[in-house]
């Protein structure tokens, strides 16, 4: 009963609004006629009967309307249910049909997963780093302000204290200006009394800093105006990370005391998470008033402050920039110290934080999007080849009564199933790769903590998946062989010539792109490989690094502290060598100092030779494994008022006339000083750059507070560092350590940027290769499909299957060859532009390019093989019969 009813009702679903009204009218009319007839039988006249019938019925119009409304709703509900059932049927059908061609389905899903995954990761990074506004009130009105000195070529200089005050007084385009002092790795304070002493990274901010930025602390409050006065300024605001690390995220940090630099500081607040200004690794924020005049000069020539500003309402960046620039110019005329720094530069705060990475990130995003687009066209191609093979099925279904809409809907469900599955997998891949991407880019990309699969990013991934699904369903219509009708089967064959040409051109473009990407990946990999094998000039293996700042009342005290600690560490049984340096290789460049060569006419001011002076202990070279080539090392003590120098080989060749120059003097620091020895070159600035001319000075005679000990020993590293810590603590239990690491780690950190580039290029290269392979496969499959009849005839006429195979293969390889040619040209052009980024090989490196060509030909051959084989499998009788 039920099923019969359902089928019966099926036809009634086509009720339109008008039909529903008609039927209700008929039903009510029937009733009224029967009632009138009954009343007539009882003796009323026809008119009276009709009148009475209508009267008894009541408000006919209202009843009519109510019934129509109810029916309409019922029909709508039924239509919805049937639509859903239809959809369910389509989904089941699609699943079955996709399962029957697993190679096709898996290829499409895998390609989409990879491409959507890659796009999602990159977009996630772009979203978190570039798109998300800074976590402040009206962040677009925040700017970073610098002084600049065009004549010295300085565009972004810190600002002096009096200048900031004058700017505040004179400039009305700013609602407020805030000043801070922070230098990563340099501004820090010692924390003692809370476990082992440790060094905290500190930023010093003035009273306007936080109010200018316009944000509230997570807990507590900002320093008040009267806490910016010496004597009342022992308050500290913790960063969220420091709060968690030092106080274990205790719920009541406000009011606690921390001992910083030996003095008690009250915690008054905790910053919100991920505070990006002035840097991401600041542990504590302290009042600027703590920096005294003798630590950093407060005069107008002393430029040490960073400035953030909030634009006044209604003022835009360019106007504020012009007015401030004018004021800077005026101040330069009024004060001699500012003469050279007569301009001011404004940059939006967001730009100052992320500006450096904007271009590379967007470039990578474009590349990945391009790859995704090409993948989509590829897959559309594959879809077409598949559709061509399903003509028979489609025409049968069409003949059985499936409307075009139904067939189209089923195809759409199929493509959406593929694309949503691919998209979901891609998002999963992205979620897995995001931590890897973050760790690879650490220290190179700012705001990485903001990078995650946020709602916007997931939304973009979903939108892309849906869009690709729709695109694939539309592809048959767009690419011109929407042959679902029986008659166009015949037409499809002859109309294919144009289609093949277009597809072939597309594949050539894909192969060219693949060549560029693979070449880029290969060159980057080889360059990276070369970098890892570069001769550093020193031995990083087995060298532990322990860094600290020595505190003393005067430089003699600092030197004494260093000597004591060096002695204590050297005395440890497991230690064979220990030396120290303020500037380690690959980390810092030393102090840029002018000098001249005695006996020569003094050069014009501004044209003196410059060299970087590095501060090291006598045993440094031995500890790091830098050979002494000529002369001797540092004497135990410098003569009074003198400094002895060593130099490296490059310096000797440039200025001392070669290795024999050991013993010569240079005129530096106003006096003639001897260069007693020449040591080997060690990479100092970057792995990829040869050592510049370097001078070494004995830091025990010319003390600097910061020292990095380089320790070599027999004990395993963990044990060694433990012993070293104990030795240092035995000299001063309050001595904090800045860090404990190894030279190998430092070298590895130097490799991080090229490593990131290489990884990105390899991923893109592999994607490009995959696309190229799929492209060739798709075109050839299409070709074979179109030419079935011709191939069948040739086979029937006695052609050898191997010959056919070779001809199809040949076609594929020919396409690839053209693509490779185009790609090579493009690569040569691109690398001539970007050659400077590579290390150790010419951009047009023949072996690499040869490798790329061979690789692509091999991939093309493999991709061509399957369709070629299918061509040989054509059964002549069957193919000809199908016509």
């Amino acid at each position, binding site marked *: 009963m039920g099923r019969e009813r359902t089928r019966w009702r099926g036809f009634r679903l086509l009720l339109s609004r008008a039909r529903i009204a008609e039927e209700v009218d008929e039903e009510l009319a*029937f009733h009224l006629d029967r009632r009138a007839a009954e009343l007539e039988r009882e003796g009323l006249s026809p008119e009276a009967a009709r009148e009475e019938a209508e009267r008894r019925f009541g408000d006919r119009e209202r009843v009519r309307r109510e019934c129509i409304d109810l029916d309409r709703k019922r029909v709508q509900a039924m239509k919805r249910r049937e639509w859903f059932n239809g959809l369910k049927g389509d989904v089941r059908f699609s699943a079955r049909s996709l399962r029957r061609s697993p190679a096709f389905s898996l290829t499409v899903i895998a390609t989409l997963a990879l491409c959507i995954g890659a796009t999602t990761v990159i977009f996630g990074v772009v979203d978190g780093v570039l798109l998300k506004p800074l976590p402040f009130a009206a962040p677009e009105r925040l700017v970073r302000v610098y002084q600049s000195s065009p004549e010295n070529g300085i565009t972004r200089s810190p600002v002096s204290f009096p200048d900031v005050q004058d700017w505040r007084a004179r400039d009305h385009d700013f609602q407020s200006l805030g000043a801070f002092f922070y230098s990563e790795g340099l501004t820090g304070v010692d924390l003692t009394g809370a476990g082992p002493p440790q060094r905290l990274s500190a930023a010093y901010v003035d009273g306007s800093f936080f109010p200018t930025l316009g944000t509230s602390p997570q807990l507590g409050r900002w320093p008040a105006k009267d806490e910016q006065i010496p004597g009342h300024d022992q308050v500290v605001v913790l960063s969220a990370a420091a709060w968690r690390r030092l106080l274990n995220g205790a719920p009541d940090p406000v009011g606690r005391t921390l001992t910083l630099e030996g003095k008690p500081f009250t915690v008054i607040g905790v910053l919100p998470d991920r505070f990006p200004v002035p840097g991401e690794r600041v542990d504590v924020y302290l009042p600027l008033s703590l920096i005294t005049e003798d630590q950093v000069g407060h005069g107008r020539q002393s430029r040490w402050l960073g400035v953030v500003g909030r634009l006044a309402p209604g003022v835009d960046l360019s106007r504020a920039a012009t007015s401030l620039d004018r004021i800077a110019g005026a101040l330069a005329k009024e004060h001699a110290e500012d003469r050279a720094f007569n301009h001011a530069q404004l940059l939006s705060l967001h730009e100052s934080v992320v500006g450096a990475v904007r271009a590379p990130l967007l470039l990578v995003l474009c590349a990945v999007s391009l790859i995704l687009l090409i993948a989509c066209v590829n897959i559309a191609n594959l879809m077409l080849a598949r559709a061509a093979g399903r003509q028979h099925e489609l025409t049968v279904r069409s003949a059985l009564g499936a409307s075009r809409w139904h067939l189209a809907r089923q195809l759409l469900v199929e493509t959406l199933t593929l694309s949503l599955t691919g998209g979901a997998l891609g998002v999963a891949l992205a979620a897995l790769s995001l931590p890897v991407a973050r760790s690879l880019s650490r220290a190179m990309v700012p705001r990485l903590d903001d990078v995650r699969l946020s709602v916007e990013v997931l939304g973009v991934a979903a939108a892309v998946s849906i869009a690709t699904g729709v695109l694939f369903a539309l592809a048959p219509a767009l690419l011109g062989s929407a042959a679902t009708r029986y008659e166009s089967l015949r037409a499809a064959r002859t109309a294919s010539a144009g289609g093949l040409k277009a597809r072939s051109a597309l594949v050539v473009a894909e192969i060219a792109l693949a060549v560029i990407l693979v070449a880029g990946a290969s060159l980057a990999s080889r360059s990276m490989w070369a970098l890892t094998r570069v001769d550093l000039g020193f031995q990083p293996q087995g060298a532990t690094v322990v860094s600290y700042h020595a505190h003393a009342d005067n430089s003699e005290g600092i030197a004494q502290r260093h000597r004591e600690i060096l002695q204590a560490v050297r005395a440890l049984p497991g230690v064979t060598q220990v030396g120290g340096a303020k500037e380690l290789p690959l980390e810092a460049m030393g102090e840029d100092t002018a000098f001249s060569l005695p006996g020569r006419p003094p050069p014009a001011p501004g044209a003196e030779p410059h060299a970087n002076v590095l501060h090291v202990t006598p045993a440094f070279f031995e500890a790091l494994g830098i050979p002494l080539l000529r002369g001797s090392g540092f004497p135990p003590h410098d003569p009074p008022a003198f400094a002895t120098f060593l130099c490296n080989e490059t310096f000797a060749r440039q200025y001392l006339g070669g290795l024999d120059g050991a013993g010569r003097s240079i005129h530096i620091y106003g006096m003639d000083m001897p260069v007693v020895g020449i040591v080997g070159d060690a990479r100092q600035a970057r792995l990829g750059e040869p050592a510049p001319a370097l001078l070494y000075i004995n830091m025990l005679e010319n003390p600097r507070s910061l020292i990095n000990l380089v320790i070599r020993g027999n004990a395993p590293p963990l044990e060694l560092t433990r012993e070293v810590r104990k030795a240092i603590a035995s000299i001063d239990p309050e001595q904090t350590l800045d860090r404990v690491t190894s030279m190998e780690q430092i070298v590895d950190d130097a490799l991080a940027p090229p490593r990131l580039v290489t990884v990105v290029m390899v991923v893109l290269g592999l994607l490009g290769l995959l696309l190229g392979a799929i492209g060739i496969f798709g075109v050839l499959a299409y070709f074979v499909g179109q030419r079935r009849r011709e191939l069948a005839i040739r086979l029937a006429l006695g052609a050898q299957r191997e010959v056919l195979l070779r001809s199809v293969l040949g076609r594929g390889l020919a396409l690839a060859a053209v693509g490779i040619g185009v790609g090579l040209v493009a690569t040569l052009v691109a690398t001539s532009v970007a050659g400077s980024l590579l290390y150790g090989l010419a951009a047009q490196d023949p072996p690499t390019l040869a490798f790329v060509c061979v690789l692509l030909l091999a991939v093309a051959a493999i991709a061509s093989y399957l369709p070629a084989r299918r061509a040989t499998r054509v059964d002549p009788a069957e193919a000809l019969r199908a016509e």
Partner: protein
Amino acid sequence: MDLIPGTLDILILKALSWGPLHGYDIVEEIHGRTGSLLRVEEGALYPALHRLERRGLLGAEWGVSANNRRARFYKLSAKGRSHLRAETTQWLAYTRAVTALLQSA
């Protein structure tokens, strides 16, 4: 007598429990089976029928009436039948309780 509000539905369902009827005959059936006591207000009937149909308790088909005219016949569905059973039980229990109360001195 006029119907107590809310009882029309159950009367319709019961009327159809003996076989499909069109709207006019439903009125006559109820009138007849209640000893001419209950007359359904005709204006209320058709909205009730369409409402019951929408809820799935009735099915409707166009058929031919006794006097050869096209009429819309309503039939009790399986869902309607079980709904009728449940409502009947509830109604009887309710009226038994009310009757018992009203009849006590």
